[in-house]
């Protein structure tokens, strides 16, 4: 059953109103297991019925309750997800987040290979993938196949070919300052669904988000590294400021997450870490608090409708 986004958001609002009147949390209605089940870090939930012809469509839980709740269980598998970095010098951060998702899926088992498609020019700009660094992030470099392309057109062709391959688990297409038309991304999204491959479209240097057929879109910016075991002097856990810019299901929001490479899990930056930050980097948007709303206020005050 599919509900148009507008109707869905309206429904959410009504449910929230009823919940407030009844004095309980609205999300209990909609997301019974994702939020309130014991937090197993690696849950692959199946959302909805499997499509005919495709693999069963699961979701990759990120391990952050608030974010998973907003995403209805996590990042959709067998679908297209867009990851955007405003500046191409944030290529390290954006690819880090994408690869952290890969590492998490790899740790969940059933991972055949990742195909990483990138333009040769981009390698000069942001550097080439470095296998020891991948290993340090917690994924197995032996399962990564790099495809170097010359042009955007070739990149999209290769991305489509990869998404169409049933034996593949994940494909990442990295583009720089590309302007893609909607039909190109729609084709990719379709292929991902049919082929059962999780597609990540990594776009660097796109200051403004463009419409695309991706299910969700993350804006990624670097965040000061997190501490490891109370050791605050060094450069610790990698961390990112994520902005959920687009979500088919409705709610969006902003989060600051850290990556624990040992457990292959995301950790939300807690109050302690926030204090340890040398200085606030920028004023948080008033309607998108970096602290998730569900944890404390409970009313979903920070959730906005998807644009």
């Amino acid at each position, binding site marked *: 059953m599919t509900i148009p986004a507008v109707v869905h958001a309206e429904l959410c609002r009504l449910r929230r109103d009823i919940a407030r009147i009844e004095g309980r949390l609205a999300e209990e209605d909609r997301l019974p297991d994702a939020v309130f089940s014991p937090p*197993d870090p690696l849950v692959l939930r199946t959302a909805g019925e499997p499509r005919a012809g495709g693999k069963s469509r699961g979701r990759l839980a990120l391990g952050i309750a608030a974010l998973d709740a907003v995403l209805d269980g996590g990042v959709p598998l067998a679908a297209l997800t867009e990851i955007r970095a405003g500046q191409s010098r944030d290529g390290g*951060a954006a690819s880090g987040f994408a690869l952290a998702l890969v590492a998490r899926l790899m740790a969940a088992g*059933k991972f*055949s290979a990742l195909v990483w498609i990138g333009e040769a020019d981009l390698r000069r700009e942001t550097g080439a993938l470095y296998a020891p660094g991948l*290993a340090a992030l917690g994924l*197995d470099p032996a399962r990564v196949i790099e495809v170097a392309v010359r042009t955007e057109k070739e990149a999209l062709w290769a991305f489509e070919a990869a998404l169409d391959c049933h034996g593949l688990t994940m494909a990442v297409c990295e583009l720089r300052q590309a302007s893609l038309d909607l039909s190109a991304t729609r084709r990719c999204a379709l292929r991902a669904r049919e082929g059962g491959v999780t597609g990540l479209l990594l776009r660097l240097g796109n200051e403004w988000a463009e419409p695309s057929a991706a299910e969700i879109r993350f804006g990624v910016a670097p965040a000061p590294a997190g501490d*490891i075991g109370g050791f605050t002097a060094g450069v610790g856990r990698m961390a990112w400021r994520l902005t959920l810019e687009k979500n088919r299901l409705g709610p969006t929001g902003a989060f600051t997450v850290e990556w624990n*490479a040992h457990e292959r899990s995301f950790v939300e930056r807690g109050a302690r870490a926030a204090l340890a930050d040398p200085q606030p*980097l920028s004023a948080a948007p008033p309607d998108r608090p970096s602290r998730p709303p569900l944890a404390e206020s409970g009313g979903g005050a920070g959730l906005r409708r998807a644009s």
Partner: protein
Amino acid sequence: MAKLKSALRIVAMDAEAERRGIHLGTSLADARGAFPELVVAEADEAVDRALLEKLADWCDRYTPLVALDAPHGLFLDISGCAHLFSRGEGNGEAALLADVLQRLARQGFAARGSIASTAGTAWALSHYGAGGCIPPGDEAEAIAGLPIAALRIPAAEESLLDRLGLKRIGQLIGKPRAPLAARFGVGLVTRLDQALGALDEVLSPRRPAPRLSAERRFAEPVVDQDSLLQTVASLARTLVPALERHGIGARLLEASFYRIDGEVARAEVGTAAPLRAPETVAMLFSERLAALGSEWEAGFGFDMVRLAVLRSEPQDAAQIDLAGKVADGADLARLFDRLGARLGEARVTRFIPVDTHIPERAVLAEPVAQSAALERFGRGAEASRSLPPPETGFASHAGFDLPSRGRLSGSTSAMDFPEAAETPPDRPLRLFARPEPVEVMAEVPEGPPLRFRWRRVMHEVARAEGPERIAPEWWRREDMDRATRDYFRVEDFEGRRYWLFREGLYGRETASPIWYVHGLFA
């Protein structure tokens, strides 16, 4: 015409010039004096060579074993090929020779040829004799009347023999061999034996002989690419029984398209796993031809297509389940083949660890089509919840250290991973192929950077960790005068993390070390 012995001399000419009495080696001034209307052109060895190579390509239609005999000869090893040209009588050799010469003449070449049991005999006959086919056993008789030069011996030896009055090969044949060898060296005797068919000569073919090949000739030239691809598919189909009989699959395939004007277009396709399926072969070649794009020129059409298996590997009979689904591994291999065929094999790579401390040397990119063990991907699909999977053996036995091997035990409880065991990543996610120099303000002599300017932007360092000292590999020649590097992991106030290094130690190695950005962390 070319410059020889400090004068411009004639090095090649046509039959008309020869008839009028010009010799090879005549100086240009003399030739011009005799025939003012002489048309000359500068000799260009490279162009001649290229033409010869093209002819050799063209000759591939007779046999896969073609060897160059520069500057203007070709050896064709036609063992086992001649009968294909026989038209009822004889063993086809004469018909083959006639076909070669006729086709060459039609292309405007003056050519002579001969067929004999050894290359030496054939060479002598085609260069100094009447050509034609010499049946085995008749070699001595056929070459006895030819001049000594037909033995392919150095000019010095030839003139020496000439002065001794030995002008014909026949005069040498009966002579005692020991004095000959003593006087002129073993070379002469060897050449003589080769010319007589007593000693086999090994030709080195230009192109490796394919393991298997199939070809089809067309009655009319074909221009249409689709028809050519269909032909490739049907050739692939004819190869399948042979591949199955030998229990092999193709790893490297080559399709050669012979254009009627003598050009040969070749397309190679490598595969990541042994391959037999004709449809896949045709698909890969269609990708390859699509990638050629404008380089593909049909001209007046092609009159022959050959499909050859250049490299093969054992392939077990595959079991396909009832639903007709192929295994995931095979599916992946097809994807890599397809990408490689379209983009170029070298562009689809995987990481191979190298045992070294120098960061940029620690990984090699190996084309997937050339790597041996790809089926591990297929198996990996079934291996669940083990990281790294034991059978990849990649991360564990060499190079890449994955954090938290404890995952292997299969436990998922967070208690097994105490916080203290966690370490920050020590290697960047992205590495620049060549480190980019930066202006750095740092504590002297060994302190971490305080701020640095990279790509015209100033970055203030908020936190830094280091140094990690990496010394050059002095046992390598190219590292002899390299300096020690001190690597720092730094983070600026915006949260971007960089891998910087200072090349050279203050005072000991250099007075003003240079800083570089080598990589970006996540």
